[in-house]
C-alpha cells in the first residue's frame, strides 16, 4: 500500500525576535526533523505534552504553516511545490478541526453561512444548492437542520464542535487533521464527538491524524500512535504494541503517569521528575536525557534516530535497536 501522506525530515522553526530592531535572537525548534507515513484509511495519533510540537506539526501538514525545511508528499505529489489552482484543489482534500470550537467559528455568521462558505470558496456547487448542502451537512453531524439560521454563540461547546466538524466535511476531504478536538469538552460530550468522528470515518473513508495529549483518548481512537517530545517523534507503533510494550523511557513514563479510574487511592509516585526543557535551546543528544531514568553515558551527545524494533514499531533510544547499549535494552 502506498502512503497517502509521506513526510521526510520536516522542520518548523519559529524565530524569536527581541529588542528595538526585532532581530532574530533565537529559534524555537517546534518541529525538529519529523519523518512519518500515513496510510489511507488509518487513524494516526500524535501524542505528547505541551510544547512537544504536535500542534505545529499538524498545522504544517495542512500548510497552515510553511515548513522551514523538509518534504511533504501527498499521494506521491510534492505538496509543498503546489501553487494556485492545484493547491486549492489539494486544500479541499485536506481539512483541519481545531480544539476550540469557540474560536474557530466566526461569531457574525449564521451556521448556514458558515457551512455554505466552503462551497462558495471552492465553487463546489451552484449557489442555490449551497444552503441545501449545508442542511444536509448539519444532519450528517447529528444536528437539527432548523439550526441553519442561528449563530455560533447560541450553541453549547459540543454542538459547536459538531458544526466545525460539519464544515470540515463539506468538501468530502480525504485527510482530516484533528487537533485536540475533544479536549475542551465535558466527558459525556467527548464520547459523543468521538463516536461521530468514527462514524464519519466509515461513511467518507477518511484518514485521520488525531492530535491529543490524552493517552486514553488516543488509545481508544487511533490505529497507530506517534509519541513526540521536544519536536521529534521518539516512538511510533501500532496502538496495541505501543500501550502493551512501550520501549522508550519517555513513552513508558507517559503511560504510567495517566491516572487510572478505579485504581483506588494510592501513594502518588510521579513517573517523571523535572519539567520539559525549552524548545528554544533543547538539550543536546537525546532531548529527553536530562529527565531520563535510564540514561547512559553518551545520551547527552548521540541521538540514534528512529530504529525498527518490531513490525511497524520504531523507537529513538540508544537502549534499543541493533546497536543498542549491551544489556541495557532488556525490559523487566
Amino acid at each position: 500500500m502506498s502512503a497517502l501522506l509521506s513526510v521526510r525530515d520536516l522542520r518548523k522553526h519559529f524565530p524569536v525576535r527581541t529588542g528595538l530592531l526585532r532581530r532574530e535572537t533565537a529559534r524555537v525548534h517546534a518541529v525538529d526533523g519529523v519523518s512519518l507515513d500515513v496510510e489511507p484509511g488509518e487513524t494516526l495519533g500524535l501524542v505528547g505534552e505541551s510544547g512537544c510540537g504536535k500542534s505545529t506539526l499538524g498545522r504544517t501538514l495542512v500548510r497552515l504553516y510553511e515548513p522551514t525545511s523538509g518534504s511533504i508528499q501527498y499521494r506521491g505529489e510534492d505538496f509543498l511545490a503546489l501553487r494556485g489552482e492545484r493547491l486549492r484543489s489539494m486544500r479541499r482534500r485536506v481539512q483541519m478541526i481545531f480544539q476550540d470550537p469557540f474560536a474557530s467559528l466566526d461569531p457574525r455568521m449564521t451556521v448556514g453561512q458558515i457551512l455554505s462558505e466552503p462551497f462558495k470558496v471552492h465553487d463546489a456547487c451552484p449557489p442555490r444548492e449551497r444552503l441545501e448542502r449545508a442542511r444536509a451537512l448539519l444532519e450528517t453531524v447529528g444536528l437539527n437542520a432548523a439550526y441553519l439560521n442561528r449563530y455560533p454563540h447560541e450553541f453549547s461547546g459540543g454542538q459547536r464542535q459538531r458544526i466545525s466538524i460539519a464544515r470540515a466535511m463539506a468538501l468530502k476531504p480525504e485527510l482530516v487533521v484533528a487537533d485536540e478536538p475533544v479536549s475542551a469538552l465535558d466527558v459525556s460530550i467527548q464520547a459523543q464527538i468521538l463516536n461521530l468522528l468514527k462514524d464519519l470515518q466509515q461513511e467518507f473513508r477518511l484518514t485521520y491524524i488525531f492530535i491529543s495529549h490524552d493517552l486514553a483518548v488516543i488509545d481508544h481512537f487511533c490505529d497507530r500512535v506517534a509519541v513526540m517530545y521536544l519536536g521529534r517523534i521518539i516512538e511510533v507503533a501500532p496502538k496495541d504494541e505501543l500501550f502493551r510494550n512501550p520501549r522508550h523511557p519517555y513513552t513508558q513514563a507517559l503511560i504510567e503517569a495517566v491516572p487510572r479510574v478505579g485504581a483506588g487511592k494510592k501513594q502518588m509516585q510521579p513517573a517523571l521528575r523535572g519539567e520539559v526543557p525549552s524548545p528554544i535551546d533543547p538539550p543536546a543528544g537525546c532531548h529527553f536525557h536530562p529527565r531520563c531514568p535510564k540514561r547512559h553515558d553518551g545520551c547527552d551527545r548521540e541521538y540514534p534516530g528512529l530504529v525498527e524494533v518490531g513490525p511497524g514499531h520504531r523507537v529513538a533510544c540508544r537502549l534499543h535497536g541493533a546497536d543498542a547499549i549491551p544489556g541495557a535494552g532488556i525490559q523487566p
Partner: protein
Amino acid sequence: MTETVVSVRELQTTFHTRAGPVRAVDGISYDIAKGRTLGIVGESGCGKSVTSYSVMRLIEPPGEITGGSVLLDGEDLLSLPEERMQDYRGSRVAMIFQEPMTALNPVLTIGYQMDEQIVRHMGLTRRQSRERALEMLELVGIPAPRERYASYPHQLSGGMRQRAMIAMALSCEPDFLIADEPTTALDVTIQGQILELIQKLQERLHMAVQFITHDLGVISEIADDVLVMYAGTACEKAPTHRLMDAPRHPYTVALLQSIPRIGRREPRLPAIGGTVPTLHELPAGCPFQNRCPRVVDRCRAERPAMTAIAEGHELACFNPVEDR
C-alpha cells in the same frame, strides 16, 4: 472515630440573573474528617466550583449564598462577620486554583506575597516570615528557593507557579484545603508531581482536603470519598472504591462508562445522550431525567433526596442501578 473538620449542610447558592434566580448549588451536604480527602466530581456547570467558592465565602453579586451552613470545627463560617472570615482565609481555610494567577499577584514577588500572608496570620516578624516562606518553597520542591523568593510569578514555569501557589496557600498550616482543579491545566507528568505534593503536605499537616475535578482518574487515585454532582445537586456519594466499582446512580454509571480508558477495547463509547440542561430550564423533579435511561414517572414529579443506602454511601435516585 475520625475527627470531623468540615461539615457542610444543605448549602444553597443562588445567582440573580436577568432571566430570574438560578440555584447553582442546591442543597449540598458533606463532612470531611481530619487527614481525609473528599473528591467532588462533575461536568461544567454542575456547581462543584461554586460549592468551593461558597465554602470560602468568595461568592460575589449577582451570586449569593441563600441557605445552609458550613461548620469548621463546629463554627459556622457563613454567620461570621466578614473581618473574622478574612482572618480565617489563608490561616484556617486555604484554596488553590487551576490557574495559579488567580491567586498570585503578577506585580509582586513571590516572597512579598508570602510574607504578607504569613505576617498577617501568624504574627511573625518580617525576618521570621522570610525563613518560613523559604522553608515552604523548599518543601514544595522549588529549586533555588532563595532566587524564587525574589522572582515574579511570570518568571516561573506553569508547574513551578502551581507549586508557589501551593506554598503560599499552605504557609499558615490551614486545617482545611480546597483544591479546585489544581492539575487540570498541567501536563500529565507534571500532574503526577503536583498530586504527590498535595498528598505529602496533607500527611504532614493533617489537613481535610476538598478536591474538585472533572477527571475521574485523578479522583480515583487521590480521594477517600467522592461526591458526584449534576446541575447543582448531589447524585451520589460513596467511598472511592465503592463508587468506582459499584456505582448506583444512573448518571455516575453513565459517566464512568463514557470515558475512554487505556486498554479497554470497544469500537464505540457508550455516550450519554443530550446535554446538561441549563440551570434556567431545569425540569421539575430529578435534573438528570431527560438523559436518564432508567427514568420513571416519579422522577418527573419529585426531586429525589440524598438517602443513605449503606455505610458512607448516599444516593439521590428513585430507580437506581442494581447493586452488583
